[in-house]
């Protein structure tokens, strides 16, 4: 099941972003819990939480929120973990209540992140963006609504992804230019800031981001263009990560019939970008530099380690 979930998570995250994926997961869980007709909801929910934990790459935001729901259940309905004949309605209600509170909290955190983010958009800025990130889009739209005069350059990648960015920004009336991502060197002197969203930050201090991000970051870092990452704190993967587990490789056999050429085409789901390659990380708690974020990461990591040993329901041990 975790394999199927991994693929589904990867696809949704690639089409939209991890925030939207998290929202989908919470809504899907609520709907599933409401129609569930099995005999032991707590046991089956624990199984689901375990499957979600085993997905690759790990979407920490989702994993944390599912753990959070389990926490809530454990705190408010502890007897249902031990009593076989527990009240399924009560369990269901607790899970749904918890989901609702997470959805509201996520929305609030995103608003706070945007409030911090729009402070970095200044008059005259030429901002380069790459893959679709809901946070980046919101920051740009909010800044535009507040009358900031700036331009956006979109590094063109797969057409559908670029199109979804263009549709949103043009609807808003924001001036947009598109440059293929392999021709960015021609405009590197025009760009004043690079904005990017990420999937997660792992224990190796690597951001997992959309494929293509690494090359862009490397190029603009060389030209001293400030690079901003927009990431909620919940996206930190608070466990030991293993190299290669956070990207997915897809091989296709390609045949060019005209010239009778057959070759293997390899595509990767994500890139890894070192934390110290970027300049600022915009979160709901404020704007931080890489060193500060590293400290925050490890302090959160320690809290998580303690949490892992505390919770009796924990199935990952």
């Amino acid at each position, binding site marked *: 099941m975790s394999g199927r979930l991994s693929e*589904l998570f990867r696809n*949704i995250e690639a089409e939209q972003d991890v925030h939207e994926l998290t929202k*989908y997961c919470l809504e899907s869980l609520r*709907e*599933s*819990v409401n*129609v*569930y*007709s099995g005999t032991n909801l707590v046991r089956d929910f624990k199984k689901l939480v375990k499957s979600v934990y085993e997905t690759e790459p790990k979407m920490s935001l989702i994993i944390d929120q599912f753990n959070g729901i389990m926490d809530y259940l454990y705190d408010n309905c502890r007897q249902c973990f031990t009593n076989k004949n527990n009240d399924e309605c009560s369990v269901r209600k607790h899970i749904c209540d918890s989901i609702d509170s997470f959805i509201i909290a996520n929305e609030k955190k995103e608003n706070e992140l945007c409030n911090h983010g729009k402070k970095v958009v200044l008059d005259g800025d030429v901002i380069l963006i790459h893959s679709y990130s809901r946070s980046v889009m919101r920051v740009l739209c909010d800044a535009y609504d507040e009358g900031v005069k700036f331009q956006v350059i979109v590094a063109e990648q797969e057409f559908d992804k670029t199109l979804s960015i263009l549709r949103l920004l043009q609807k808003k009336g924001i001036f947009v230019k598109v440059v293929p991502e392999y021709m960015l060197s021609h405009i590197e002197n025009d760009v004043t800031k690079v904005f990017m969203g990420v999937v997660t930050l792992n224990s190796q201090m690597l951001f997992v981001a959309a494929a293509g991000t690494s090359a862009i970051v490397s190029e603009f870092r060389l030209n001293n263009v400030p690079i901003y990452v927009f990431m909620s704190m919940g996206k930190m993967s608070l466990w030991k990560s293993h190299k290669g587990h956070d990207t997915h490789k897809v091989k296709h056999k390609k045949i060019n019939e005209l010239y009778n050429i057959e070759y293997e085409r390899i595509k990767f789901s994500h890139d890894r970008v070192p934390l110290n390659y970027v300049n600022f990380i915009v979160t709901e708690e404020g704007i931080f530099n890489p060193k500060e974020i590293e400290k925050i990461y490890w302090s959160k990591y320690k809290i998580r380690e303690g949490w892992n040993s505390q919770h009796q329901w924990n199935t990952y041990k």
Partner: protein
Amino acid sequence: MMLYLAVAIFIIVMIVVAFELVDKAIAALSGAVIFVIIGVLPHEKAIKSVDFETILLLMGMMMLVEASKRSGIFSWLNVRVAKITRGNPFLLLVLFLGVTALLSAFLDNVTTVLLIVPVTLALTKGMGLKPAIYVIAEVIFSNIGGSLTLIGDPPNILIGSASGLSFNDFILNLIIPISIVSVAVLTMIAVVHWKEIKPVHADLEKLFVSNLLIRKINYQFLNTNLDKVFIIKTLVILGLVFIGFMTHSLTHLSVDIIAVFFALVFLIIGRKNLSIHHILKEVEWTTLLFFAGLFVMVGGLKEVGFLELISSFILSLTDNFSLILLIILWVSALVSSFLDNIPFVAVMIPVIVNLQTSFSGNPHLDLLWWSLSLGACLGGNGTIIGASANVVAVDLARKEGVNISFLDFMKVGFPVLIISMIICSLYLLVRSDFF
């Protein structure tokens, strides 16, 4: 001599079409041109034998369907249905089959399959179900639904044009057998494949994956801003076309004129969203030319007296009207399950007209048309090559990594064909003997 030559050319053309040695339009037009060159039928008669009512109706419907597709309304309908199922595989099967049958009654079967199968594949694959049975069942129901109306399947368009039977005649006469066949086939598929389609409400993980997938599909297929005004225009036009078809025996407007008229009205009122060039590009001109060539060839076979020979042969087998109905039904079904049903029906239409003359005075002459229609349309379910929609659906599935072999399809399709034919036989016998 000319009779043998004409039949030989016709058979060669059919073999070329069956084995797709060249495009079917090229094959049929070549046959038609050869018929004229060697004098099977004169040029004027060749032109007159082309049934422009059928060709215009097909063209008008293709334009209407293409224009309607651009409103996103069909994708919206599919996603709504997927949401209603809440990830229940059985409900998914039942609702998607219902939508397939309904859509294919008014759209052509290939279009229906192109609209439904991608959503089904995405859902079933993601949910870890076996997509093959869903795809096969949808194809079967597209053929069943298409049998219901005058515009649902090309054989019915041909029959409607030749017989003068109205849109309502088709529905009124075919609703009973088609409804019974639908229920019987659904029950059969559900019972045989229960393990693969049983509800998953007791499995939280599967439920979660299903619900997540439905959201993904919602985004994937509705990732455009639906233009409400355009959707309203689409619904109004489709409604008017439907009313036009239902009332054409009162208004005395032929169905082809209704289809083309509303297609043009649609292009005018929807000009903000529609381009005539794009719409005409999507019209299957090769299919229309195939029909034109076929009409000329059938005209040629009629001219040399071959079709009268077939009628005489059928009458020589029996003079029992009920038995003739069954012969037409079962022969049409068996032929259509392996060969293209369009040329078969085109050849059979003059045969039916001859048989009607032989049985003049019998109050149930129309049953000959219904036996041809039911046999030819439902016969397509027998094998993977029985209908264009089957081939298209299997291709779509293969592209998504789901292989459906000839035998896989036949294991489901042929029993469905037999059950359908038994039900239709009983219906025809009851009508000819008791009503």
